[in-house]
């Protein structure tokens, strides 16, 4: 990315490279933040946008620190977000493990792959998340623990991207790299462990980054139906119900959900950085 950007520099704009990159990036971020705040507040004043539609930024900040009998709002939101995070994490782990195992099976057995692959691919163009309400309601009626249905939704949202990407990774082994293994008379297990598995790792992480957010979304969606009592999704629903009386709180819950998504993504990205160390820095 940066290469192309600097290429554009030389051909088109050619700005003098005096300020270091991090400095103008930092300055830029500050500027963007300020700009958003100014536009936010001035449009609110200019068009007389009511608080329930667009609260003051201070109202959102206030909503975070407001005390309640159970502690300040930010603490409650943190607890609910952690609960959602746990649901998502259980589903994420379950979905990525089974997804990985299925991908390995499909890679090993051509017949199996021919039969199942079209459906796995189609799953990417189809809104499978729509079965979420049935899982929540159905499992709730069966008396399953409330977190389980959320975890299952997170699991199947994780499952499909992992299968597709890992399978692609296992298959994208360089032909000569494979012949090299053949020249050593390596066993199938050695080829898998020493060649296919490492080749597939970057692909796995691409999927995990998609799935990290998807599993958070899945858990939140699972918390929407009536009857749920814990989780950031519940707080969003509460926030939207009391928005007219308490503008700012709805935004606070949504900011919390956004942070949760970013955190999940960031955790996977960090793990990738630690594990896939052989890649050139972008």
């Amino acid at each position, binding site marked *: 990315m940066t290469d192309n950007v600097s290429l554009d520099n030389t051909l088109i704009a050619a700005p003098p490279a005096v300020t270091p990159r991090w400095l103008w990036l930092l300055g830029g971020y500050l500027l963007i933040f300020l700009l958003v705040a100014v536009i936010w507040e001035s449009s609110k004043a200019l068009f007389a946008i009511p608080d329930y539609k667009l609260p003051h930024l201070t109202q959102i900040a206030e909503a975070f620190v407001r005390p309640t009998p159970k502690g300040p709002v930010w603490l409650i939101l943190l607890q609910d977000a952690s609960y959602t995070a746990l649901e998502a994490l259980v589903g994420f782990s379950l979905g990525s493990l089974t997804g990985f195992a299925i991908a390995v099976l499909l890679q090993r057995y051509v017949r199996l792959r021919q039969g199942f692959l079209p459906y796995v691919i189609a799953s990417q163009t189809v809104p499978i998340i729509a079965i979420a309400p049935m899982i929540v309601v*159905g499992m709730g009626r069966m008396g399953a623990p409330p977190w389980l249905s959320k975890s299952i939704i997170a699991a199947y949202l994780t499952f499909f991207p992992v299968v597709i990407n890992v399978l692609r990774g296992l298959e994208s082994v360089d032909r000569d790299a494979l012949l090299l293994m053949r020249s050593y008379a390596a066993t199938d297990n050695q080829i898998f462990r020493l060649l296919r598995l490492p080749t597939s790792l970057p692909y796995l992480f691409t999927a995990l980054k998609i799935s990290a957010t998807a599993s958070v979304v899945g858990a939140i969606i699972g918390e929407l139906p009536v009857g749920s009592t814990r989780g950031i999704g519940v707080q969003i629903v509460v926030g939207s119900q009391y928005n007219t009386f308490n503008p700012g709180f709805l935004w606070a819950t949504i900011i919390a959900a956004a942070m949760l998504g970013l955190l999940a993504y960031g955790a996977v990205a960090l793990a990738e950085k630690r594990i896939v160390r052989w890649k050139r820095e972008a």
Partner: protein
Amino acid sequence: MTGASNRMQVWLAPLLVFTVTIALWEGLVLLFKPPVFLLPPPSLIWQSFTSQFGQLMSYGFNTFLEALGGFVIGCGAGLVAATVVARSPRLSALLLPFAVASNAVPIVAMAPIAIVWFGIGPGSKVAIVAVMCFFPTLVSAVRGLTDISPDALALMHSYAASDWQTFTKVRAPNSLPFVFNAFKICTAVSMIGAIVAEFFGGAVNYLGIYIKTQASILKTPDAWAAILVACFFGLAFYFAVVLLERWLMPWHRRRG
């Protein structure tokens, strides 16, 4: 193996998997008799699907229209923003991290705010879908407009081509594969966005709300039938964009 029998197998194996899965599903449900609301047999889903076919399709079409509206607005705005951002390397270095990070944000969670802004009707769903489509399109389009071989740009430079000429002859065609990749992702994103945004509330003649209501009153076969319809519209939307891609990019080789 000859070509013909190979091609047969490509169809045969998935068909076999489909048949076996359905048969197994039906058989196991008959055998263990789980409550219908937990796992209805395929026959019951099919019955529900055929008996309300017209109604389901009209719900599906309503939801699809929301998805399409959001797709057009979001992708269109993404393209316009990309042409602006791509002109300045500094601007793209500044803004792209935000656009990439937005991938990690559960945008559908903002549906309640969209409802406050645009009402409980289709407007709020279109808005959510538009936001969800905006960022992937922006990121891909900027990449496509700037990820160009230096020689191709140097060639235009050697012709003393204007910025506009460079844009129409090199940058825009170069970005097409990237843009269509984003469009294809956005077809799925927009259907998902519309349905999930409907889970937050709306009128009953839309798929998401229908699924949610039928599930909550334990009419699970109806909800499954609605999901069939959602899948149909999702696939149809996707393949429509694929067709458009083939038509607009005849030079792009088909991948197997």
